[in-house]
């Protein structure tokens, strides 16, 4: 057999035989579902934490909530996401039969929230104090100033960093296999162990991640250009 025949053979046994390609498509579906809902959890929780933290920094209020938020950030950012995933699955939900996708969404969402929180907080703190004062001088209280004046500007400033965090999150979900969830990475690995052929399935997995990241990055830079344009320098 020449090289090309050999290669075609491997392609066949890796992807076609036994419909093995469905491991990749099903895995991809799981990866996308987990990422999508984890982003939602991360954004909502992250914004909440950021508002608590920056309100405390600006006004000195919410001392207890700020303390809890700080503990949360320290723990989440100070431990690996895989360990957090394992603890949530094998410790917190040890005694209940629970959907693994739900566990993964929770773990990655809680993890991402810590990073989103710090991004959003930096966005809020980057807004000139004069904007807060202008709001206050017009009789707008702190929540109103935050909602109508600060957040829209902060959101614009942090959009690229936020989008970047989602790209990181997409790749981080590749450790979902630790709780035996068949995501894209695990799907490729299953093919590898079935065919004893590592190169093709793993390269295929890597390529799929790469393409998704490139598409997302492209969207982000498009967005950035749009924002720069509407900045009316």
């Amino acid at each position, binding site marked *: 057999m020449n090289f090309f025949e050999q290669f075609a053979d491997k392609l066949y046994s890796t992807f076609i035989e036994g419909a093995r390609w469905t491991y990749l498509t099903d895995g991809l579906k799981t990866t996308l579902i987990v990422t999508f809902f984890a982003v939602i959890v991360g954004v909502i929780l992250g914004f909440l934490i950021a508002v608590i933290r920056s309100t405390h920094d600006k006004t000195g209020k919410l001392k207890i909530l700020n303390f809890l938020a700080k503990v949360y950030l320290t723990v989440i950012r100070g431990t690996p996401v895989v360990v957090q995933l394992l603890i949530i699955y094998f410790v917190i939900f040890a005694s209940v039969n629970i959907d693994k996708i739900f566990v993964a969404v929770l773990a990655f969402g809680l993890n991402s929230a810590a990073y989103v929180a710090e991004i959003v907080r930096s966005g809020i703190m980057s807004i000139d104090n004069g904007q807060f*004062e*202008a709001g*206050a*001088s*017009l*009789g707008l209280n702190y929540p*109103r100033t935050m909602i109508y004046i600060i957040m829209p500007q902060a959101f614009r400033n942090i959009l690229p960093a936020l989008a970047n965090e989602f790209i990181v999150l997409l790749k981080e979900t590749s450790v979902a296999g630790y709780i035996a969830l068949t995501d894209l990475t695990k799907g490729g690995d299953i093919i590898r162990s079935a065919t004893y052929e590592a190169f093709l399935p793993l390269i295929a997995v890597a390529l799929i991640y790469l393409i998704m990241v490139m598409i997302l990055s492209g969207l982000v830079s498009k967005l950035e250009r749009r924002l720069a344009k509407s900045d*009316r320098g």
Partner: protein
Amino acid sequence: MIEVKELHKHFGDLHILKGITTKIEQGEKVVIIGPSGSGKSTFLRCLNRLEQPTGGQILFNGEDLTAMKDAQLYAVRERMGMVFQHFHLFPHLTIKKNITLAPVKLGLMTQAEADAKADVLLTKVGLSDKADQYPNQLSGGQKQRIAIARALAMNPEVMLFDEPTSALDPEMVGEVLELMRELAEEGMTMVVVTHEMGFAREVASRVIFMDDGKIMEENEPQEFFTNPQNPRLKEFLSKVL
């Protein structure tokens, strides 16, 4: 209208205001001058409690601002307009939205009423054609005129100006002062911190000289500029005039 009693302000160990006592009556145009670091801006910012005084009282129509709960304080701020040195327009909103945001969000006007009011104000400040542009497209003088319009949209009882022309190119100072002069002629109560001596002389009903956290001298402008008593004021005037 505004009564200030023994006002003190500390920033940590720094004693910025050392017992200010004065009264601002309805319709008065009070201009505050003084060297930088004299506490004049801090004093102005205490009047709507952007700075929290550390001692003394500020009575606005008889209500003590220094002892107020937040909700009351915001209600008082609705009636006190403020114009900043660096404008602080909202860059993400159009000029018109800058003007209508506060009255609409505070439930004082409907969007339609606020829009109508904004049109009137934009005509007044001579910038009707800029309604749909963004702050960054405007010159400094135009920004400051919009900032004044934004404050006026709340129908304030008094306007506080914190060095409104200090950040402007020289050729734009005139248009802002002209607008402030018009406002004064209409009877608005004004408190102005400024370095514009010409404005103080022509528009003020009273000029206050502050130095080292204290009011050193206050008088009607004619007497203030031609016959100053305080030695620090004499020295200051000899340098700036």
